């Protein structure tokens, strides 16, 4: 792991790695350049990274938060094999370059959904990390469900809540398993109800139904803290942009 990180850091000053695959932090002088592009384009969707989520983290942050630790070799889900770097003494290790790419996609998607006023719901069934997840949801004005999943909250929502209910527009799973054996039912229900999902998938998880899977450690509190911080940052950037957009729209409305 280390040699690759160091390598990237060294080469950062010498050659230009495409931003898309780069693992290093975004250089600062790039931002004013982006503003020029921003004005020229009409929709945020045309911009590759409108909310600058690339600058939220770098691979070293992931490494420090122990995102690269997977479970033991025996519990590997075959579908997770492409995301692995290797195995150290029987413990699987994620390739953090791959993880970073997936995570940036996920963060970008999150920011765009927040910008469009979507409802974002955090999920987590690990009691150890439940509180920080709920706190994150509260702090960024979104929603959380870290408790026992009563079947039918999505699939039978109108009956469950006794009224027509708007379902979340994005579900973020900070772990996708109920316990080591079963997948969270909400993962399946999201796919059923056409709700996109982002999920941190460990080596023993199935990434099939998750729209934006992020391979990484889903148990360690430090790692979960980092994910929470990143998603919070992305949502806040999206919301700031939304506020700005709404204000502009209002001004235009009053002038017209």
């Amino acid at each position: 792991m280390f040699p690759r990180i160091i390598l990237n850091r060294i080469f950062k000053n010498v050659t230009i790695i495409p931003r898309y695959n780069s693992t290093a932090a975004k250089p600062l002088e790039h931002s004013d350049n982006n503003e020029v592009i921003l004005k020229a384009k009409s929709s945020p969707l045309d911009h590759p990274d409108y909310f600058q989520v690339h600058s939220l983290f770098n691979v070293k942050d992931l490494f420090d938060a122990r995102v690269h630790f997977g479970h033991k070799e025996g519990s590997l889900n075959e579908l997770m094999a492409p995301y692995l770097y290797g195995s150290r003494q029987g413990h699987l290790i994620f390739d953090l370059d791959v993880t970073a790419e997936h995570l940036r996609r996920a963060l970008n998607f999150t920011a765009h959904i927040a910008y469009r006023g979507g409802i974002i719901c955090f999920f987590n069934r690990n009691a150890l990390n439940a509180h920080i997840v709920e706190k994150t949801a509260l702090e960024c004005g979104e929603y959380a469900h870290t408790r026992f999943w009563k079947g039918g909250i999505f699939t039978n929502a109108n009956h469950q809540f006794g009224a027509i209910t708007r379902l979340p527009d994005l579900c973020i799973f900070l772990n996708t398993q109920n316990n080591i054996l079963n997948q969270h039912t909400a993962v399946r229900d999201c796919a059923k109800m056409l709700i996109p999902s982002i999920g941190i998938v460990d080596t023993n998880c199935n990434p099939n139904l998750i729209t934006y899977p992020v391979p990484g450690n889903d148990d360690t509190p430090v790692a979960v803290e980092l994910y929470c911080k990143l998603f919070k940052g992305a949502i806040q950037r999206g919301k700031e942009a939304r506020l700005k957009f709404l204000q502009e729209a209002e001004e235009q409305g009053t002038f017209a």
Partner: protein
Amino acid sequence: MPVSKYFSSSLHSVYNKNARQYSSSHKNTTNAHDINDQFTDWETLNKKKSISKPMKAYLERAREHDDFMKKQQIEYNIGKRHLTNMMGEDPETFTQRDVDRAIEYLFPSGIYDPAARPLMKPPEEVFPARKAAEFDEAGRPHHFLFYTGKPNFFQLLFDAAEHLENLHKFEDKVLRNKAIPEQKSKLDLSSGVWVSKDQLEIMLVETISDLEYDNFKLVMERLVSTPYSYRCIDFIEKFRKPLASQKFALEIPKPSFDEEGRAYITTYECLRKKARGDVTIHSPGTGKIIINGKDITYFEDIQSREQVIFPLIFTGLQNRVDVECNIEGGGPSGQAGAIRWGIAWGLRSFVDKSMLESMQVAGLLTRDHRRRERKKPGQPGARKKPTWKRR
């Protein structure tokens, strides 16, 4: 500057390449261009403000509920007018209390459970209050735990966890500063219990399962057991209620003394059935009992006499105090019961604490509020039915 320029251009080429790749990968599913042409831009769509579907449905339901309640209110008022007519009273001054009294008079019921007896109450009391809209006009729920289905309950658990975390942080800080914990850090909660499940449900306006109630108690116990839990006493006290009356221990009157220097105490208002009287106890004494100027033979039957001397025998004071009582009304058993309670109530001043507790357990200090049940029409007694004959 040239470097950054090159940077951005390389970046765009990569993105465009990627975008092309993705669109080609989806090509087999649809010819996306046809649909895309019909799309209105999100930005333009969002400038038109509209009420969301959930909100529309909620407003509809709220209107229906209001109509229903209005109808119920009208029916209640008509019923009240009829009642005043029947009772021959002034409709202007006829209150809800009068309504209850009238219903009890007109529809006498021997059913034990008060909730099952006939009643007439204003509709606001009969139909439970409904939750207000839980989401705003865009359909976004107000509560961050809305999707759990029990937001208030889980908010409570969330708050408890938050307090717990803060306490742990504080404890760490104290340890780092190498301080000795304060004495008042131990929280004394012996004078109360956690609110019951029903009360908690009323507080939260949500139904909770037994398991969830157990979880609630577990979390709160854990919060209490941490050192420095006094720092969130306000939060804890919200979910505790004082233990039922241990008051009698505090309110025992001190006996007065007469000219001869004997201690005496008088209990007024000794009631049982229709009997009513007062009891005076003198100590020290020789076991004399005077009832309306006569001795214990005032009562002719053995049971009543036993009733009167039972508290004296129970406390072992039968030869050490004198009892004097005036009693009127009711029959022998009612009078004996009233005296028994009066003696026991007066003896509290002459016994120690452990005896007081055993008297409480024996039921000597409990008032008997039962009254005669009225006779019902169509049957010979309060409960008795006519003899059943085949033909």
